[in-house]
């Protein structure tokens, strides 16, 4: 490849060979061809390459590529179906996009626009709030004062009873204790039976069956499933069904096109 010639020079050589240069351009080209040895050499090399390619023999088609009536009829039916499925798939995809945009984009805009007046109302609300409410003692949940809460955080002192007495002294009877129900149950037998019938939520372990039901197959009723589906918003259901339809039609169109 000649370093002296530019891309434009190669373009000129190519154009001259194909008879695309006219008038002054052609005269300038011919003048340079006689004066510039490198240019002349490049011209002859490209001319030679072009001549070689033109000397390639033309092949004959190995058979006739004409189309038959039967093939055309069958093909046009498939082609029509392919178009139909393709169009249906595209329409479903467009509908899916519109619903998605409507449910997400506009709802999101509405959500982001809503906090503005609420934020404006905040200082007023702060001014209106009565001092009585703020002076109320905070609710303290006192976890198992009689036993140490190993691993539950918060550490633990050695003298729990002293701490409990201090709390009771500070907050009086308003302190709600977790084990108050247990204490009441020990006092009255009715409460005790009621407590025994109510399963303690803290003892529930997710994933374990209830006693006596081990080994039984878990049956999720169709009613329950239908209830879950009915709880989904209509737009989600539309989006799912449109997505499925779009995919199925697209697959059918691709299948027909391949065949």
């Amino acid at each position, binding site marked *: 490849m000649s370093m002296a010639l530019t891309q434009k020079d190669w373009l000129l050589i190519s154009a001259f060979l194909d008879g695309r240069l006219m008038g002054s351009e052609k005269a300038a080209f011919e003048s340079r061809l006689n004066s510039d040895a490198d240019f002349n*050499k490049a011209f002859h090399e490209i001319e030679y390459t072009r001549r*070689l390619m033109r000397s390639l023999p033309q*092949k004959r088609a190995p058979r006739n590529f004409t189309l038959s009536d039967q093939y055309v009829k069958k093909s046009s039916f498939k082609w029509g179906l392919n178009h139909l499925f393709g169009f249906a798939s595209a329409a479903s995809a467009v509908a899916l996009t519109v619903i998605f945009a409507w449910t997400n984009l506009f709802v999101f805009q509405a959500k982001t626009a809503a906090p503005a007046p609420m934020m404006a109302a905040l200082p007023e609300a702060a001014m209106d709030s009565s001092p009585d409410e703020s002076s109320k003692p905070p609710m303290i949940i006192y976890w198992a004062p009689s036993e140490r809460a190993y691993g539950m955080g918060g550490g633990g002192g050695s003298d729990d009873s002293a701490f409990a007495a201090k709390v009771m002294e500070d907050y009086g009877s308003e302190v709600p204790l977790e084990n108050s129900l247990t204490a009441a149950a020990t006092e009255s037998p009715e409460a005790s039976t009621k407590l025994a019938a109510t399963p303690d939520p803290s003892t529930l372990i997710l994933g374990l069956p209830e006693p006596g039901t081990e080994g039984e197959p878990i049956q999720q009723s169709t009613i329950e499933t239908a209830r879950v589906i009915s709880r989904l918003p209509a737009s989600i259901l539309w989006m799912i069904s449109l997505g499925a339809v779009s995919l199925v039609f697209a697959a059918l169109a691709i299948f027909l096109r391949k065949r």
Partner: protein
Amino acid sequence: MDESALIQSAMKGELEAFNRLILAYQDMAFNVACRMLNDEDQAADAVQNAFISAWRNLSTYRGGSFKAWVMRMVTNGCYDELRRQKRRPTTPLEPLCNDDQEEMDSPQWMASDDPQPETTMEQAELEHALSHCLENLPQHFRAVVVLIDVQGMDYEEVAQSTQAPLGTVKSRLARARLKMRDCLQGFQELLPAQYRLEGEVRE
């Protein structure tokens, strides 16, 4: 019946008229596909698909050169085939070795160390060299150089066939010829005498 009348009849749904157009262009289409794909079987398939596609899309023909429009179908078919080959490369099932333990497909001009057998046909050597160089060209350059230099189409028709602007066609052609020149210089000594570049020009 002239070409425009055949086109009109074909557009009205007359398959016979379209088949006559196919007969007029099938050799050219096959040659273009052969040079693009470098495989006669694949070329035949590509041409058949191109004519089927042309029949289905005949309504999209808006006048102008029908030859360029048909060649557009053929080049598009070849691009599809080349893309498919790139995605799923295949290996030919022909035996790799013959009795002399040489590759069956290996052209003799590639064996530069061995002396050139006298019995080799000169035209075949030239064709092999050109096919090798054409195969090494980028797809778009190959299409332009095949349509213009091998098939003798003009720039405007090629611009229509390749759906590229005229300036792009000129640029691709110039660059493709330059690449072909570089490639063919490697085969100078192996080419038949009448196809060699004169010594005073090559130095």
